[in-house]
């Protein structure tokens, strides 16, 4: 298939008003201004229904791409002998220590023994807990940049782990299922 030059005016406006180099220095009356050339033009740039409305690809950043690459390469974290993966998803954990706080990306695994966040490069478990140490599982909503973001809160040893993934509800569901796995009832039913 050959690239088409079927640009619409809006395609062009979008680039010239929202992209390209904008300078910011004393010798320049910068501007690059959508507001300056009229609100109606800005309206023309209003977004049509996009993948964002579906919450898609929001996390599709470099880490995610790497994850897909790794996925294609079939690299896996190390598991205990009879440990079985029940659920996996790309996601993040809120990391807050001293001055550093950020969402750290990785690959969440729910197994019949543990929940952990695995980073491939360098290979490390960024978070790990055994199922029997989980006191509660909850979903909550945080407002970030004026937008509601769903996250999963896991209470472990009196501490709350904040977790994000593309499908928080499915993640929660997977954890609950793992927690109800009969193997983890302390008193086996006789």
């Amino acid at each position, binding site marked *: 298939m050959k690239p088409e*030059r079927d640009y619409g005016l809006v395609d062009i406006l979008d680039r010239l008003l929202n992209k390209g180099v904008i300078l910011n220095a004393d010798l320049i009356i910068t501007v690059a201004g959508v507001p300056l050339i*009229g609100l*109606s033009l800005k309206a023309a740039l209003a977004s049509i229904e996009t993948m964002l409305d579906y919450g898609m690809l929001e996390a599709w950043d470099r880490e995610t791409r790497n994850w897909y690459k790794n996925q294609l390469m079939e690299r896996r974290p190390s598991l205990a002998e009879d440990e079985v993966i029940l659920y996996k998803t790309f996601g993040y954990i809120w990391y807050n220590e001293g001055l550093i706080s950020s969402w750290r990306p990785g690959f969440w695994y729910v197994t019949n023994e543990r929940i952990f966040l695995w980073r491939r490069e360098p290979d490390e478990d960024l978070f790990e807990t055994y199922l029997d140490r989980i006191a509660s599982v909850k979903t909550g909503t945080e407002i970030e940049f004026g937008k509601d973001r769903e996250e999963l809160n896991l209470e472990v040893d009196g501490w709350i782990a904040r977790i994000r993934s593309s*499908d928080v509800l499915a993640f929660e569901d997977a954890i609950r299922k793992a927690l109800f796995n009969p193997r983890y009832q302390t008193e086996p039913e006789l």
Partner: protein
Amino acid sequence: MNEAVKEGRYIYSVVSSAVESELGDVGIEESRVYLVPSGEIAAVVHSCVAEPYVTKDEEKAKEWVLEHSYVIDLATDRFGTVIPFSFDVIFIGDDDSVRFWLEENYDLLKEELEKVRGRSEYTVQIFCDEDLIKEKIVTCDPELLKLRDDIEKMPKGTAYIYQKKLGLKVKEELIKEMTRLAGEFGVYIEELVDEIKIEKKVSWVPDKYKGMMMIAAFSCLVSDGNVDALGNLLDGIDKREGFSVRFSGPWAPFSFVQLKGT
């Protein structure tokens, strides 16, 4: 006392050229567009009053933007890939101010020009036929298929609730599947391009894609030699049942120029 009218230079792009020359009266409001060179690079400008172009007349504004775009295209034809500037960026001062700025940022500009040499920006948008994919999801999942059959036999009220549930479940599966595919396509595309960016906001698509669900939109910086290969890859996606690809370009590398620190 009236403030003196300040002289300005409207900038369209920075190009690889070491000599003074001009492109003709092709700029905004038929301004004479010319090059201000410094070393091996040059700014493409026209001379104006150091005030932004402002109008309430939408037609006028569109005309200006198209004129700006036209100058970028002309400069690209003549000097190879350019560093495109946003609309309405104006230097206060004369050619010397522009030259001063070019000298100050010479290495940075040169590096950016080097980066985009022999490359252009292309847009890739991938759409899917939502209904068709949903139907596939149901027919491939025995549980969902059974639920759908069961619903037909339910009393109206119950059927309604289960229909809703089924709808939600299918939508959920659809999003999961499309997110996975978008990621997969992205990885394949990335192999063939120098740089890739996800467009989170897409303002406009041609009529033929309206009503389809956009699952991914990328801007890609592509070497001239790789455009055919990318086209072939996209062909493969376009031919999948229920998918459609819009591949447009070449553009000046609007999404890939960064001049931090200027």
